């Protein structure tokens, strides 16, 4: 097995295990409480509306929006880390079929691995910091994944071309 294939498989297995452990921790300790919190915020908003206390109702809607913002990203991180890890393992097994030199394949593998770690990391950091850095990390990470995947798809097609 080539070193690029090894890198993708080891990186993929590590990322999948990490993503699953994160998911298990989230499901046991955070998810139920978060969902209950979202439901409570929304209920309070309309209870305040019924009591004609509009400023409190607006505060509850805002609290719901913040909790949901975090919930969406926490779930997305779990699914994206595991999904990207599976993709890396699959591609790792057949990476020698990508029609580039060993060196190019290795750097493509590095790009895909880094992008797969950085992109969801940027997404989850958005729950702690609403500044530019987490969003920039997510954008750069997803760009790395897209560029490497485009090159890999081209490499497969190139390899399949007779005489390539």
């Amino acid at each position, binding site marked *: 097995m080539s070193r690029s294939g090894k890198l993708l498989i080891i990186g993929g297995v590590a990322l999948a295990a990490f993503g699953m452990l994160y998911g298990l921790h989230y499901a046991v300790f955070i998810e*139920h409480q978060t969902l209950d919190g979202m439901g409570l915020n929304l209920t309070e908003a309309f209870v305040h*509306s019924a009591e004609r206390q509009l400023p409190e*109702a607006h505060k509850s809607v805002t609290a719901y929006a913040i909790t949901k*913002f975090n919930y969406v990203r926490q779930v997305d991180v779990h699914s994206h880390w595991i999904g990207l890890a*599976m993709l890396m393992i699959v591609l790792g097994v057949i990476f020698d079929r990508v029609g580039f030199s060993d060196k190019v394949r290795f750097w493509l593998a590095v790009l895909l691995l880094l992008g797969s770690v950085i992109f969801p990391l940027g997404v989850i950091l958005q729950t702690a910091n609403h500044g530019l850095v987490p969003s920039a990390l997510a954008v750069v990470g*997803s760009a790395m994944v897209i560029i490497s995947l485009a090159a890999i798809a081209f490499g497969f097609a190139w390899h399949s071309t007779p005489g390539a």
Partner: protein
Amino acid sequence: MVSTALSSNVAAAFAPMSARRLLVFGGIALVVCGMLFGDIFAVFVLHQNGGRTGETLLAAAQAAAAQDSTRVRDAFAGIGGLLEDRGTKVDTHVHMTDAGYLALLLALVQPYVALPSQRRKRLAQLFLTGSVMLPVGIFLIHYVGLAYSPFPVIGWASILADAGGAVLIIALLFEAWGLWLYLRGTRTPDAETEIPRENSSAARALLTGGTVLVLLGFLYGAWYSAVDLYGHEAQETSILTKLADAAAANNTQGMNESINQFGGLAAARAVSIAAHSHIIEFGLLAILLSFIQPYVYLSDVWKRRWVKVLLGGSVILPVFVLAELKFGLVAGGIADFGGFLVIVALVGMLVGVLRYSGRLDSATGARS
């Protein structure tokens, strides 16, 4: 003509009740069951659930307008139940399908897991057990609730699902340990041989088509998160605030408008996320299926047909899911048909693998 020759080398790579055979059969079965569940959910539950959620939210707003806090709380308890019903069914579909993908993936890496064959087989059984426990547990969460549970927020069905997840993690950690041993140079005498490489047009189409589907899914996801995600989140807050204001002012027209906007927004988000996730998952599935083509004992013509059906369904479903916003239920029906095409293609390939293993076993029995 049937394309797969049955050499002793190939036979060794698909031995009866071996880890790989268990994982290939279990993986395809899990994907088929997960997708079938998803199709049934989309046709019989999804839209009805969305409609009831809108009606209950309107009831909550009307209760707020009537200054009846008790009815507001009752309505939101109802919405919580509806969302849990929907969420657990989506999660059942996703986790069952993804466990199937993982099983196919593990079948692929078996030659690199440096553990004795008996242990590999036990790990495959453990993995498949967890793969059934997890989605079944998730499905039951809505129906079992907190009945007889010793915990304040986690019911027995959640415990079953979490235990299934833990079983999967244990199996994967041992598989990872086997991979680590292999990479450190350990070799076992009864190691599985590598899956024979098939350079047929069917395998190539699945490999390249699958990678392109994954890429398209990522491009769409990046576009959605850059253009729509934050806008949708801001819109939801704005609509809910207007709804609370309209309820406080007893403004029936305002409440109805907000409910309609809320339903439209929920639909827009749902179809965007569904299109993104389905096109990527179908791409991954196509890549995985390219590996098992040597085990699909069908003529080249039929292999190519099933590949076309699979890739066709993989494009139709996400495209028409997106078109649902514009063309409504007609597009939804076509999207469901796309999902059905993928299921049919998978069953066709599974039949090919069953034919292959039956022929292999009978040939092995005749030799012994």
